[in-house]
Each structure stands twice: as C-alpha cells, then as structure tokens.
C-alpha cells in the first residue's frame, strides 16, 4: 500500500476524497432539507406535511428522487436542444464549484488523518471574490433555460429572473467589503480565524448592517422567498423553467438548494465566527476530538441559518417586482456604500472598532426614516381619482 502511495501525490488523493465527500454529503443533505422544509411549512400552516412514505415520511426524499428520475422527459418542439439540456447543468455546477473555497471545519489543525482536509482548495487568497465570480455565472443557467425553451413566457421569465440576480450581486459584493477592510484579507479561512478570539470578535457585532444586507441579497440570489419572483409558484406557473420536467427540473432546484447551503455557510463563517464558540470550540481547545466538536458547532450554525431561511418563507410576503428593484438599487446599494465609507473612516482615523456598531444602527435608522418620509410624501401628493381620470382622458 505504501509503495503505491509513494507514486500518487497525497495532495491529489486528499483533494479527490474531499470533493467526493463534499458533493455526496451536500446532495444527500439537500434531499432531506427539502423534507425538513416541507415539514416546517406544514407545521407553520397547521397541517401535517409528508407522512405517507415511511415512518413520519422520512422516505419521502427517496420517493421524490425516484419520481424525478422516472417522469417523462419533455423537450418542447423547436427548442434549442443543446442549451435546453445544458442550462440546468450550468446552474447546478456553478453553485457546486463555489464550495471549493468554503472551509467546512478547522483548517490546518493537528491530530486529524492526512486524508482529511476541510477545504477543497486551500491557499486561495481571494476566497470570497472567487465565490462571487463563480456564482455570478449561475445566471447563465437561468437565462439560457428560459431562452432555449422556445416559449415567450419562459423567455420573459428568464429575463426577469436574471435582472433580479444581476441587481442583487452588487449589494452582495459590496456588503462584504467592510469585513474585507477590517480583516484586510479576502481569504475566508483567515477571516474566520480573526473571529476566534472571543465571542465579541464575531464580525456580526461590528458589522450588523453588512450582515443584514449580505443575508438579504444572498436570499435574492438564491431565488428564495420573499424574493422568489422568478418562479413564484402561485402566480407564474414556473417562469423560466415552465418547460422543464423530471430530472432537469430537479437540477434547477438542487442548484437553488445548494445555493441556500452556500449562503448559510458564508453567513455563519463571515459573521458568526464559523466553528468558534466560547468555551466549547476555541483555537486553544485541545481535548480529544476537538475538531469533531468544531465541525459540529459550524454545522449547527449553518443549520440554524437554513432553518431561519425556511421560517422566513412563510413569514414575509413576496415582493412585487418594482419593490424588489427599489430595495436593491435604492436601499441596499446606498446602505452598503455608506457602510463601506464608515469602515474606511474608522480605519483611516484609527478610531475604536466599536464605533461601527452605533454607526451601522444609525445608518439603518436613517434609511428607515427616509423611506417612511418618502412614502408619506408620495401618499400626500398622490393624484385623486378625478385627476387621474382627467389625465387618462387627455
């Protein structure tokens, strides 16, 4: 065995093992997250949810998977076949590629077997930018899927969905800049390690506004409620994926769910300290199996964020498209710019970092006051019914 191992670089084996584990676990977890989501939504709406297949419905994901595989493949007449088949794959693949720079546990600790590593691609010093770059390609899946379907409604739906995704990329990227400036790096693992000093080192405390903007835009990027305009099931009959059936349809949704998991990982690593938790998992904790506990802490945080996203789904009503665009261009982008300016000011003049918390809250309050004042002014100057009738008559 050792003789063979000498000829195969250890790095290669480690990478292959890590990729296999990450892809396998992510895909398995996604199917059970869908079950959890259905159970949670049933609980929130006071109904039972899936409970027919297996005890408590735990075999429901298997049944769903079998159904996706066995359903009829429909390809619309006149569709561009190559792009029609490629689109779901592009959407799914780009999201999975982004996982290559996300640390799944404590990176670079002693006492774990050589073939275990919690990061597929270590030493990428542009981690976050890489993720944004790769996930910005997932818009191709949406736009090509809609266009290749040879269906006007799908094409319009895809334009609408991609407009949303492209608009929310800007606040998503800019909200991270504050953290990047504070930590003076873009490497995700370094940013995580900077938060492992104490509970108050988590970036959430100094950057609450950035956390809110990041989380909101990431929800919109993943097409989750309240931003699921691209596929709002109750009113649109599908949008860009109207013509997709069976496994191709499932791939779109696997990509979407992988995006939710990615978002949750990034939120908990960038803002909530990753695997760090006071007294339980710190860089100094040296008890046996500390690395397992650290992974557990990280996965617990990720799970909490995912459940929060699911609860949001049945709490906040869906946005209208103009509200969605207004939120991105008139609220989130200026706010994230102001947040960045605040961080730059604090760093330039060497003020205490804790000034950022009241500044963030103040910015949020000012934005709220402005929007309320604008809405009131709009209501006050709204033309009366008689004026409107006159306007349309002429």
């Amino acid at each position, binding site marked *: 065995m050792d003789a063979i191992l000498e000829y195969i670089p250890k790095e290669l084996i480690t990478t292959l093992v890590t990729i296999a584990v990450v892809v396998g676990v992510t895909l398995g977890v996604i199917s059970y997250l869908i079950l959890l989501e259905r159970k949670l939504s049933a609980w929130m709406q006071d109904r039972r949810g899936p409970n027919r297949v297996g005890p408590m419905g735990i075999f429901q994901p298997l049944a769903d998977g079998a159904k996706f595989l066995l359903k009829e493949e429909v390809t619309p007449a006149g569709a*561009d076949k190559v*792009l029609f088949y490629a689109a779901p794959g592009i959407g799914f693949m780009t999201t999975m590629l982004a996982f290559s720079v996300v640390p799944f546990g404590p990176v670079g600790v002693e006492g774990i077997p050589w073939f275990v590593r919690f990061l597929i691609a270590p030493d*990428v*010093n*542009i981690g976050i*930018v*890489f993720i*944004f*770059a*790769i996930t*910005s*390609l997932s*818009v*191709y899946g949406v*736009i*090509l899927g809609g*266009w290749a379907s040879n269906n006007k409604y799908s*094409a319009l739906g895809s*334009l609408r969905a*991609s407009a949303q995704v*492209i608009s929310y*990329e800007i606040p998503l*990227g800019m909200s991270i800049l504050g953290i990047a400036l504070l930590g*003076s*790096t*873009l490497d995700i693992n370094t940013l995580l390690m900077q938060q492992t000093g104490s509970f108050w080192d988590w970036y959430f405390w100094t950057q609450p506004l950035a956390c809110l903007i990041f989380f909101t835009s990431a929800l919109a990027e993943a097409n989750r409620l309240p931003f699921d305009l691209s596929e709002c099931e109750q009113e649109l009959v599908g949008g860009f994926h109207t013509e997709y059936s069976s496994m191709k349809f499932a791939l779109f949704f696997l990509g979407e769910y992988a995006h939710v998991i990615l978002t949750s990982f990034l939120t908990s690593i960038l803002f909530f300290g990753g695997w760090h938790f006071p007294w339980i998992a710190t860089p100094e904790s040296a008890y046996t199996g500390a690395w397992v506990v650290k992974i557990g802490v990280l996965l617990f945080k990720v799970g909490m964020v995912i459940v929060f996203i699911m609860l949001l789904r049945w709490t906040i009503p869906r946005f209208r498209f103009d509200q969605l665009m207004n939120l991105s261009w008139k609220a989130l982008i200026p706010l994230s710019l102001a947040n960045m300016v605040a961080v730059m000011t604090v760093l330039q003049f060497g003020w205490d970092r804790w000034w950022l918390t009241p500044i963030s809250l103040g910015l949020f309050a000012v934005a709220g006051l402005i929007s309320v004042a604008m809405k009131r002014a709009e209501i006050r100057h709204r033309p009366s019914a008689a004026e409107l009738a006159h306007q349309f008559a002429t």
Partner: protein
Amino acid sequence: MSESAAQNILFGSLVAGAIGMWLAASQRAAGLRLLGSILASAGLIAAVTTFGNPAGDLTDKILFWMFTGSALLSAVMMVTSRSPVYAALWFALATLGACGLFMMQSAPFLAAATIIVYAGAIIVTFLFVIMLAQQQGRVFYDYRSRTPIMSIVASWLMLAALLWNFQEWQKKAPAADGGPALTAAAASNPFSEPKENSPYGSLRSLGLSLFGDYLYAVEIAGTLLLVAGIGAIAIAPRRAEGTL
C-alpha cells in the same frame, strides 16, 4: 537565428495571417475563403511559434495548453458561429480560458474580476439584447462582415505591436528558465513605472501597485469612466413622467 531574420519571420507571418483573414471574411468563392482561413491559421501559428514553449513543469504545461486551446477554440467558434446567442456563449468560454491563464500567472484577483465583469455582467447584457431584439434567431446581417478591412488592419496591427513587444523583452532580459521576462524599462510609460522586485500574486501587492505605482493611470481611467457615466445619463432620452 539573427535578430532581423526573427523579425522578418514574425512580421511576414503576421502579414500572411492578415491577408488570409481578409480573404476569409470577404464575399468570395468558397474555395478562396477556405484558402484564406488556412493562410490565416498558418500565419498565426507561425507568428506564435517564434516564441518557444512555455516554461514550467508538466502540470503547468498541460494546464497552459488546456487553457490556451480552449480560449483559442472558443474565440474561433465565436467569430464563426452563425447564431448570435452561441457567439455570446463562446465569448464567455473564451473569457474563462483567458482567466485560467491569469490564474497560472499568479493573478487570481484579475481572473476573478474578469469573470465577474465580462462573463458575469457584460455578456449577460449582450444576451439580454440579443434575446429581446432578435426573437426569430438569425438575422442576415449577423453572418456577413460589411467592412472587414478596417477591423482586420486594426486587430492585426495590435497583435503585431504586442508580439513585437514580447520579442523586445525576450531580447533584453532572457530569464533563467528561457521564458520572457518583463523589465522595468520595457513596461514604463511617462506616468507610471513599476517597482523592481515588488511581490506579486497577493491582493495586498495588487492594491499597493494600483494605488502606488499606477496611481495616475488608475485615476485617469476612473475619471474617464465617471465622465462617460454622466454623459450617458445626459444623452439618454427623457420620457414623460410615469411612462416606461
């Protein structure tokens, strides 16, 4: 090989390539166009082969040829494909190939930024326009070049200038491993000058370089973009209140 001979080969092959492309792009018989494509490819390959193989170990070489091959193939497919949507997609793939090359040159940030800006934003906007403007798919003016001569002269002049610069660098500072090395003098311009031995590859050094060595260029480019942005808003047609 003497210096002038190397230069003659370089420029000869470039001229041959330009003539070949002109033949291929104009409205002529199919045989002439085929001959033109062959001549253009031969000229390009001859021009590039005057520079020798890339340095590095086997993995580097495999990656280099993979990225170069995919970028070149996608570029050729982009200019030759008849459907504008496919052309835009090949453009995106060519960008990705070029980004792979940036990665190999220890410029990961440049690679990521290029993907975000070009593949993620600009080409998607192209796709928007194509999909909204040409719902029938193919329009005749998309697969016929109207004024090939100007674009051919411009592009091949640019290629010639680039390759001539590479040749100059190779002559001035042959690196230990045979690859071309960039000297400070070769890259200098009236406003900006890179420092010798500055660390490369990290984000920090990129920031220091952009806002230190190349401050004037960056500021001038930023001002230009700002002016262009204001100009675009100024010349955009105004509509009545409340209409789309």
